[in-house]
């Protein structure tokens, strides 16, 4: 009697451990699952690549685009938007500039990551050229101006009159060196 309960307990415990392991696997599986969902619904683009714009220009409408710059990892350099606010017509190709000054005494490889507000505007904001497409290498003390060429698609929902585009620069020197 006693042993049979002990055996039953051991069997049940094994099953429960398996449930725990499966749930651990499920937790890790949420990572690719999450990325798939974001890709499929267009919430985020995992690859930042150049896009094509459709040709139409809607001269009747004007949208305000703000450009913001911020640093991560307490990088000792300055990163700023030279054109902070621009007025554009949907469909119109526009160029803005960002400036980076590397005040550190070392070579830095940086990666800029864009973010939009409101998020609904993201699918309609097409970047034809951007310094965020590639990692950027800066020599010690180097100052460089970098371009973003973009188009706001005419399909932008009518209630969006103002878009903010924020770039955060990350220091990826360590990671880039490993590759």
């Amino acid at each position, binding site marked *: 009697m006693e042993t049979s309960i002990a055996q039953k*307990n051991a069997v049940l*415990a094994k099953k429960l451990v398996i449930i725990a392991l499966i*749930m651990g696997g499920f*937790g890790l599986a949420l990572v690719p699952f999450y990325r798939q969902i974001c890709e499929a619904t267009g919430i985020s683009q995992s690859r930042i690549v150049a896009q094509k714009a459709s040709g139409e220009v809607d001269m009747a409408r004007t949208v305000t685009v703000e450009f913001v710059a911020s640093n*991560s990892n307490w990088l000792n350099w300055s990163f700023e938007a030279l054109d902070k606010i621009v007025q554009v017509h949907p469909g119109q190709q526009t160029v803005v500039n960002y400036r980076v000054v590397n005040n550190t005494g070392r070579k830095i490889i940086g990666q800029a990551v864009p973010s939009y507000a409101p*998020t609904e505007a993201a699918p309609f904001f097409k970047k034809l050229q951007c310094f965020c497409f590639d990692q950027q290498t800066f020599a010690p003390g180097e100052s460089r101006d970098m371009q973003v060429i973009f188009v706001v698609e005419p399909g932008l929902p009518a209630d969006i009159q103002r878009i903010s585009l924020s770039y955060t620069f990350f220091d990826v020197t360590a990671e880039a060196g490993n590759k």
Partner: protein
Amino acid sequence: MEATHDHAHDDHGHHPTGLVRYFFTTNHKDIGSMYLWFSLIMFFVGGFMALVIRAELFQPGIQIVNPDVFNQLTTIHALVMIFGAVMPAFVGFANWQIPLMVGASDMAFARMNNWSFWLMPPAALLLVGSFLVPGGAAGSGWTLYPPLSIQGGISVDMTILAVHIMGASSIMGSINIVTTILNMRAPGMTLMRMPMFVWTWLITAYLLIAVMPVLAGAVTMLLTDRHFGTHFFNAAGGGDPTMFMHIFWFFGHPEVYIMILPAFGIISHIIPTFARKPLFGYASMVYATSSIALLSFIVWGHHMFTVGMPAAGNLFFMYATMLIAVPTGVKVFNWIATMWKGSMTFETPMLFAVAFVSLFTIGGFSGLVLAITPVDITLHNTYYVVAHFHYVLFSGAIFSIMGGAYYWLPKWTGHMYDEKLGKVHFWLTAISFNITFFPQHFLGLAGMPRRIPDYAPQFTEFNQISSVGAFLLGLSQLIFLYVIIKCIRGGVKAEAKSWEGAEGLEWTVPSPAPYHTFETPPAFH
């Protein structure tokens, strides 16, 4: 299993004494007591941090701690209270009560039970000790959101390790509890005749087994992001901090039910005892508890309405969250219906239970307010949220723990506690709790953000009321400590059935419960 087997034969009537007894014990009553003492100590540690926070918030401006330390205090206060005070308290109750309630001689895996407990003190030391390392404790909030948790110093690693250890302890404890409940019940005790506390813990243990590994995965990914060059949550490498929030809250929302379902169980014993009526709607209580547990897996998004989910996602999480009000309402209805036309008396456990029903309901309603997406977007990260979760966790979980402690102290110690002091403790706690946390609703509605040491001057009065209440609340708990110690040292001899209306197998054994009980399964009618 060998250990329990030998134990039952060799140690009968003579067991190790002193420290060694507690270090090596496999006895569910010893382990239960250790969990409860551990919980009480952590409650005072976490409470001390809360008082430093409230002292800082007594006036606008920075007076006592700098903003870094303030963030560390809010972070560690939460982690200590959740993983150190509330959860171990319920595990302590489970250890003491479940074998007694189902008529088992001990937990299924007595040796593992010992490990589960002794993992807790090192984890607590890591958590609290992280204040002493360079840079201070983790300041990212208990949710450990990146990027802050990726940028922090070694204390974040200590916190992650502590979470791992406590998670392992919880999973081991849960496996033990499920096995004990499913395999070791007295003959005749079918699932639908189990005491409510046993039911709620069975469901809680399953929740723990399901979500603790997910939390472990999330914090492991944080760790590899910090040290091994991965980019799960690190935006620089294409990772996504929002993904951490999704994974964390997939754990986090069931976690809040882990902290309240056993409370529902305790209340479902206290109210019938002091209303002298059987629990109204037993079966609906079981189904309501199960529904709450199942729904808890699909509502995590309500913690992150402001991250920019699509409207369809926000709506889904909003409606799913509101759905939980239905089974919760069933439970509240049943407790009130149990009291209805009962011969009620108001001993301390009953006072805590009645206060639980009314105050937890307030917390439930403020939760419903926060479930409304557009309202939450305004109230997110304000003191309204702080007020809400203290109503459900303090006047919910902790009131049930205190009520349960008073309820079962006679069984544990063999003495009745000091009823007069118990009532003083209750009234001081209930009143000062409301003084502390009710004004925080107004602060939140007026826009005061949480986790910030300074605030605009117009918030001063309500913060001062809240801080005065908090100190009264903190000091009142010393009465609780005194009543417990007094009760252990002596008092009126408790009968086997310590309360007139008490039902259940635990009341058939003498008080204090002998070291070994139910070595042969009892008859259950």
